[in-house]
């Protein structure tokens, strides 16, 4: 069996706020293999975003271990950590909040190219145009402000920014939740295509089983900071075991009445 790309063991995180403590993550274990999509589902406040951001080293955990490409991710600091980030990327839920209000499309995509020296400076404009085309956007968009394009276009720019450094894993935190249904389907198709072409693994955070069913190989259900169930998407929808999974299935009625319908 191949080595997991990402391996999380005993991950714990508590937030202390105004005297009380919230246990956001409680002994999380998970493994993700190259080119695979693992969905992370759970109700609001179950700890999905905390887990996603902890794996990205945007939040520091209190306990546990994260191994990425066999290396101890939590031991990395400074320059090492920044260099490693080219292989581990993230797409945020709200494409509006995830871009600097002053950024142009070109700048948003140029940043990772420049920081990780992916291509020489003179080739960057061409690479930006290529990346835009790969995510299904016109290269004429490059000069526009990121906040002057549509939500769907913006999320495609976020994807272009994420794939610019040829990452092996992209963590997507509710990356399609803010999009209209038709736009959402197209962005999901794009993600699937990119995965086929580049073999990128996805950690796909969502609370929508309809979306998860379409993209994920396996699903882990999070409840109060713990993984309470782990199964293939179809098994989970057909035969949920935990209360959290049952609630999620019940909350997605179109799954019950027409399980085969595409979303």
């Amino acid at each position: 069996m191949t080595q997991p790309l990402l391996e999380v063991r005993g991950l714990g995180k508590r937030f202390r706020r105004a005297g009380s403590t919230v246990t956001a993550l409680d002994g999380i274990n998970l493994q993700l293999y190259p080119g695979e999509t693992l969905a992370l589902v759970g109700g609001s406040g179950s700890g999905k975003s905390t887990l996603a951001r902890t794996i990205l080293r945007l939040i520091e955990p209190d306990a546990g271990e994260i191994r990425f490409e066999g290396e101890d991710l939590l031991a990395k600091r400074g320059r090492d950590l920044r260099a490693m980030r080219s292989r581990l990327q993230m797409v945020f839920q709200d494409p509006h909040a995830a871009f600097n209000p002053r950024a142009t499309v070109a700048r948003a995509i140029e940043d990772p190219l420049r920081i990780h020296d992916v291509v020489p400076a003179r080739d960057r404009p061409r690479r930006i145009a290529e990346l835009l085309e790969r995510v299904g956007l016109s290269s004429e968009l490059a000069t526009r402000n990121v906040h002057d394009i549509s939500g769907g276009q913006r999320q495609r720019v976020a994807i272009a920014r994420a794939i610019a450094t040829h990452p092996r894993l992209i963590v997507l935190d509710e990356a399609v939740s803010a999009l209209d249904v038709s736009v959402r389907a197209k962005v999901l198709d794009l993600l699937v295509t990119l995965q086929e072409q580049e073999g990128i693994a996805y950690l796909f955070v969502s609370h929508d089983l309809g979306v998860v069913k379409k993209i994920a190989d396996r699903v882990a259900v999070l409840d109060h900071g713990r993984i309470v169930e782990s199964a293939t998407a179809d098994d989970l929808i057909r035969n949920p075991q935990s209360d959290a999974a049952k609630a999620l299935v019940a909350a997605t009625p179109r799954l019950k009445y027409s399980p085969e319908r595409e979303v």
Partner: protein
Amino acid sequence: MPVLRRFLGTAEGIAGGAILLAIAITAVLASVLFPGDPLAIVAEPMLQPFQHQDAILGTDRLGRDVLAELVHGARTSLLVGLAAAFAAIAVGATVGTIAGFAGGLVDEALMRVTEAFQTVPGFLLALALVSVVGPSLPVVVTAIAASAWTQPARIARAEVLSIRERDYVASARAIGMHPAEIAFREVLPNALPPVLTLASVIVANAILIEAALSFLGLGDPNIVTWGGMIAEGRVVLRGAPYLSIFPGLALVATVLGVYLTGEGVVEALASGRSR
């Protein structure tokens, strides 16, 4: 430019803008309008204003043209005001950004320093610095900036504390951007607008402090300043009050112009945002 149109739609904007523009044009054209040294003696001393063609506003105790001095003094006032405000905002925004972004001990240390500066009245600090280092234009500007950077620093820090929690900062970290670049390229430009609303107050204050320093004889002695003119005129206040009144009026007009312009800008920006 919708902001400019809204700015000119406010009463403060029109009045302040007109006053400031007039003074700024005068200052820029000073050496065209009155070529040569404004401190040169051109006529008999103590000529009354509005009676002589070549010294419309009269002459001072030494026979220098009051109007020429006023016009050149405008240049000093505006220059010192703008330079000091620029320096104060640049230093304040940088310190505030580093404090807010770095957090922890760095933040503690920088904020203690800021508080220390704040407890000393600004004018006294400037006075002390100039007396120690000696009066020259750069020293005066530095001294005024040293007393004015604390407010921009506090406002920048508060703004940075909220901005650093935004997703786009997390996104910049996620792509591996260096913390210094995140602080100064992603965060600082977005923290600036509220800091810039302080600009007019700082400029007005700087102009007044410069005048006060010059009045006390601590201005650059080789340059005409309104404060210096008022001090000169004070000696003969009874016989020739105009020698103090003209620079005094110029000072009031400039400070008022700066202040009203600032109000107009704030109002224009606010009405733009609420639309």
